[in-house]
């Protein structure tokens, strides 16, 4: 939950700086979190292709986990993974 008081926000909620959407972590909406088992992962990067939020981390052309700040937990990566290396875990349990 954001902390600003009503009186501290610009009138009408207008946004007075450019590029501020980077600060809005839509990953907070997530109810399920993807996790990868790197023993099974073949680095085919199918998850990277399908992720609608650019939340798959790739290092040296290898799948290196998730960027959770904007991952909404949609589960497409887990669904598409050809070797079932990605599983969805409940958040907050």
């Amino acid at each position, binding site marked *: 939950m954001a902390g600003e008081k*009503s009186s501290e926000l610009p009138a*009408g*909620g*207008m946004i007075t700086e450019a590029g501020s959407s980077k600060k809005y972590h839509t990953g907070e909406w997530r109810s399920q979190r993807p996790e990868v088992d790197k023993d099974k992962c073949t680095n085919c990067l199918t998850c990277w292709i399908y992720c609608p939020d650019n939340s798959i981390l790739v290092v040296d052309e290898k799948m290196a986990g998730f960027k959770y700040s904007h991952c909404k937990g949609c589960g497409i990566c887990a669904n598409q993974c050809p070797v079932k290396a990605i599983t969805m875990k409940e958040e907050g349990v």
Partner: protein
Amino acid sequence: MSEKLAVNGDTAIAMAWKQINPDVVAAYPITPQTIIVEAFSDYVHDGQVDTEYVCAESEHSALSICVGSSAAGARVATATASAGLAFMWEMLYIASSMRTPIVMAIANRTLSGPINIHCDHSDAMGARDSGWIQIFGENVQEAYDNTVMAFRIAEHMKVRLPTMTCIDGFIITHALERFEPLEDEAVKKFIGRYEAVRPLLDLKNPTTYGPIAMPDYYFEIKYQLATAMEEAVAVTRKVMEEFGELSGRKYDLVEGYHLDDAEYVIVAMGSTAGTLRFVVDKLRAEGKKVGSLKIRLFRPFPAEDVAKMLKGKKAVAVMDRAMSPGTGGALYSDILQSVHDLKDAPKVTNYVYGLGGRDVMPGQLTEVFEDLMKGRGKRINYMGVRV
């Protein structure tokens, strides 16, 4: 020296717009508002104003254009009535939430059905909770004066809210009355230069208007409307005082007539307030302790002013020219909550009246006073309906 003219209420509003010279007017014609935008489009055609006049394809579009123009940094005016205002419903909330100080004239006309083009306040009452300031005028002079004041109120930095100036359809919009406009220069000086806040066209300071606000921000943004409305009470009072000094016409948020020693009071908005004063005079001549209260500012509702005016009265009747089927009128609820905490609060009853343009006769208002004096009348009454 000011001139005296005979014009109807719509023309008086168009004349105010001509002097104000808004940057943008976007509108769609609808009876009984049409004269306003027709007269104003003549001024545009004849080069008497610099306004960009946009003929929209609907009221929804008209108000959308107004919102966009206001966000871009323009001073904006529009006008509508009845179904036109209803068609703007979605954009009304956008305009107030985005804090675009648009000034809109409403020629109060009932909502269908049955289809009907005549006066009642049901259009404006439907917009009651939309976050717009609502000012009701009684006659042609007030139609003009309220329009001039509305720009100052809406654009005040502590307020920045869209504002409706309402006049009774046909009764005021189409009736010729004697009227005194201010001089062009006096109006220009009174309203001042428009100061846009973070206009979209200021490319050096990029701004996003109307972004999404989820449960973590929405309530805080809405609360801003509540506080801006609170500010608007004092700002409106100040603007009316200043306008009084300029014009010699004294205005206030609410206006009492023979209230000081009155025991029985009728409350009304719009043109009925004039009929009511005639009835008060007649009954006063017979020695009856009666008075009337006119509500000029309806949103924000000046509850403290109302409480002061109605303190110590025996009985009050509230005239509502609109109804909320299943309960009384909206003004009734507002008056009730205003007097609720008074010691020995007056008995308050409600009279729904004049729907669909039905005439209000002095004899009927006299009967309402009789009801008050004799302790008759139900909690909610429907004046003049055949049952």
